[in-house]
């Protein structure tokens, strides 16, 4: 038999209490996420000026996130597949509503600011887009044919452009990459990938030609933040100082002067990694990176073990999207990438993307814990 039927692992079946199995929890993933949350709260306590208030609010959000994860883990993945087109459709409708409302005028602009409504459509789409593409492609044999690829591309590009118009470039980037990951996992030939990348490279100068002067200026600022010490450059300069001055062992918890003297902007949210690096040094940073790597690796493992095309595509794409968050955020804070407003998963203060991310992990757990184990 070429099908490698995995022997149940120690943590998967034998030794677990009925409770953990009954709750459909994947223990390694759960442990990784809990450790990351703990690190997050410790760093946030320092970054947030030792405010228990901030800490409590974040803890509540995390609890909500874990709750969402557990609820989703209980549902069988076939259920997600059935819901996918509906969720995607509703998400698109809400996106369109947001765009239309936003263009109608001043009054409507405020409506968008009311509570969760502003974020909801794009948050739903972060999960709905990869699932929709996976659902669509999994109907037919993989790797997908050209026509299916074209349809799938439209499913990705339309919501991405709508979100980019809001304008929310960070989310648009995530959405596009989550959809593209599904395409890559579905087995699109590398030659096609190379052709598309080449074509995009060729189009770039044309797009550049049509940009207005001020838009070009913004691109320049992204590439050379040092030339813009008042805007994006200020963030990068201060964040590099914070990270670099942390050294190997760091300045110690609650002792990071950059954040505490208010030199590092947004030190609780997008730039919290700089606080971590300043206070815990390279050692602390490596531990956190190792935790992230563990979670990503476990996610990919779950994807390889999944038992349907839909499940594996969804699991693979959601996991890599999680990694994009990590890479883009740390890349931006360390000055490798332009400043794009993306939080550091599980550690940054703020709840909008946290719950979505946990929901994605819930889907992963559901995929893994609802496998029908073939008896040997």
């Amino acid at each position, binding site marked *: 038999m*070429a*099908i490698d039927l995995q022997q149940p692992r120690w943590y998967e079946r034998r030794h677990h209490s009925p409770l953990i199995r009954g709750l459909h929890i994947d223990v390694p993933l759960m442990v990784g996420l809990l450790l990351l949350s703990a690190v997050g709260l410790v760093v946030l306590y320092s970054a947030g000026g030792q405010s228990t208030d901030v800490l409590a609010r974040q803890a509540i959000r995390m609890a909500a996130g874990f709750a969402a994860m557990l609820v989703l883990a209980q549902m069988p993945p076939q259920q997600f597949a059935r819901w996918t087109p509906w969720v995607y459709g509703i998400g698109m409708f809400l996106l369109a509503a947001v765009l239309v409302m936003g263009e109608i005028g*001043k009054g409507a*602009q405020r409506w968008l600011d009311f509570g969760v409504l502003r974020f909801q459509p794009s948050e739903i789409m972060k999960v709905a887009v990869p699932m929709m593409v996976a659902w669509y492609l999994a109907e*037919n*044999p*993989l*790797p997908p*044919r050209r026509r299916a690829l074209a349809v799938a591309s439209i499913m990705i590009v339309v919501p991405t452009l709508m979100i980019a118009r809001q*304008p929310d470039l960070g989310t648009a980037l995530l959405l596009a990459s989550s959809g593209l*990951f599904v395409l*890559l*996992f579905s*087995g699109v030939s590398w030659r096609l990938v190379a052709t598309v990348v080449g074509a995009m490279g060729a189009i770039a100068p044309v797009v550049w030609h049509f940009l207005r002067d001020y838009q070009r200026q*913004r691109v320049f*600022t992204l590439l050379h933040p040092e030339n*813009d*010490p*008042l*805007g994006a450059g*200020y963030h990068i300069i*201060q964040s*590099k*100082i*914070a*990270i*670099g*001055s*942390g*050294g*190997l062992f760091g300045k110690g918890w609650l002792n990071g*002067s*950059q954040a*505490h*003297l*208010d*030199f590092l*902007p*947004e030190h609780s949210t997008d730039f919290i990694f700089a606080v971590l*690096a300043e206070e815990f*040094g*390279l050692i602390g*940073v*490596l531990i956190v*990176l190792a935790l992230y*790597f563990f979670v*990503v*690796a476990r996610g*990919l493992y779950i*994807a*390889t073990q999944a038992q349907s*095309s839909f499940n*594996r595509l969804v699991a*693979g794409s959601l996991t890599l999207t999680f*990694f994009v968050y990590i*890479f883009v955020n*740390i*890349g931006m804070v*360390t000055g*490798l990438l332009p400043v794009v407003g993306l939080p550091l998963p599980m550690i940054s203060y703020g709840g909008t993307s946290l719950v979505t991310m946990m929901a994605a992990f819930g889907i992963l757990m559901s995929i893994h814990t609802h496998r029908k184990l073939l008896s040997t």
Partner: protein
Amino acid sequence: MVERTHLKNYLRETHIFTSRVLVALVCVSALLGLLVVRLVYLQIISHEHFSTLSEKNRVNIVPVPPTRGLIYDRNGVLMAQNVPSFSLEIIPEQTDDVDATLADLGKLITLSDDDLENFRNLLQEKRAFESIPLRFRLSEEEVARFSVNRYRFPGVEIQARLSRDYPFAKVASHALGFVGRINETEMNELDPTNYNGTTHVGKIGVEKSYENVLHGTVGYQHEESNARGRVLRVLQRIAPTPGQNVYLTIDMNLQMVAESALEGKRGAVVALNPKTGEVLTLASLPGADPNIFINGISTQQYQTLQDDPNQPLFNRVLSGQYPPGSTIKPLLALAGLEYKAVTPATQVFCQGWYALPGDAHRYRDWKKEGHGSTNVTSAIVHSCDVYFYQLARDLGIDRMYKYLSYFGLGKKTGIDLPGELSGLLPSREWKRAARQEAWFPGETLITGIGQGYLLTTPLQMAEASAILANRGTIIQPRILHALQRNGGTEIVVPTPAPQGKVPISDPSNWNAVISAMEDVVNTQGGTAYGIGRGATYRIAGKTGTAQVFGIKQNEKYKAQEVEERMRDHALFIAFAPANDPEIAVVVVVENGGHGGSAAAPIARAVMDRYFSSKPVL
């Protein structure tokens, strides 16, 4: 269902997927490795460098907004300036509790609901370490009261800023426009770096159209501060580049004459230099004092202005669309001569009304008893409607449309001011598209006397008059006279691009029409006879009366009996000196009645002022 016949090859799919996951894992590892390398570089290799910087890090970089450029009229009369004023600003990051701070501040200093709402909007848009203005133009007493209590308010500062001021208040307010606080929409459109520290932006008028010139470039300074952000000293300063000063083509002397002549009425006055297109006067009355907009007026105040039936916020010169009435006749006379629909000798008998063959409808002349026998000159001088009904019928709407287009009707003049409307020059195509109806012959007739669908803005009529005065040389109206850069050392005067000429086969047609327009003003019986009297220069003009509401057949229009709002609009176009015009003027008085009596004297007043400042030859 061809595709369905392909069976899913589970083994192959699994194989591909597993290999793709391996690739993904390699990529993830490589990218994480890249991050680790970067972190090693920052934290180990450059550690000492950043440590030193961190030790010394008591320095904040703070934006220094540029001074907004001043606005002058063509003679250097100051129209918009900057006056020092104190504002109250908050840096949210340094404030423990913004809500409590606002509540406490409210006890010391009056904060209106609008102040608070504006502040909260900005609070969401700006970053926490940026200074956000809460109140502008504090009184000295308020400054003193806050200063005594300042220790209670960390993160709250009094800032000395420059505030925009318009010394002439209402005069020329529609041309100047005004600045106001940057709102959320504008915030997304403006360059966040260059507007870092800037609180106001041009909202309308010249302030808006020349915003990029007036604003300047932001500077910044490195400030040494203590941990609470109080500035100890300035270490390094990159000075901002102040905005350029703008000289307008407006002549405030003429502007004031025009506005006082129009005082108490609703209407518009435009004066152009026909040779260059420079706008000498741009008056729209009533106006509103722009100073009240600068720091945000209350919603209620704004509503009052919005709801005012006299529409003080409405720029009639650019956006007021009026039927041109008889002021269109000189242009149509020209079209008739050009297309040989008439010759100077053509006679039309006016019996007080005109009818199309086979149609009982009587198209009436304004003079019930008729003008008798008329030619092109007398038809212009006495503004005979019947002559132009006949002319319009002979020309046809297509040729009328074509020729009037040369004079810029039906399209924006392209003046360097925002908010211009294009009026309406009707054509068959337009009517089919807009109304899904064919063009009727009767509509050609009423277009011939400047009524019906035809709509023009006062600025368009001014442009058309200027082109007529130029004997066909097309100009584009503009309001920018010059820019003054680098503290006045460099003056830039834009040169307008040549705009071409109105095609004409016989140049003597210009003289025929223009001399008839001279007679309007200078001969007895001319519709504006009287306003030419005593002038040291020769005026050519044409009156117009635009119907606000239709008069039924067999009914007589009696101005006194009609409610004021229903009265006709009075119009007058003129230029002088007739042989070599230096100034073209258009006057519209809403519900003013007759052009000759209500509008023409205002044009005369403006021209008198213009020529009185010239050396008398």
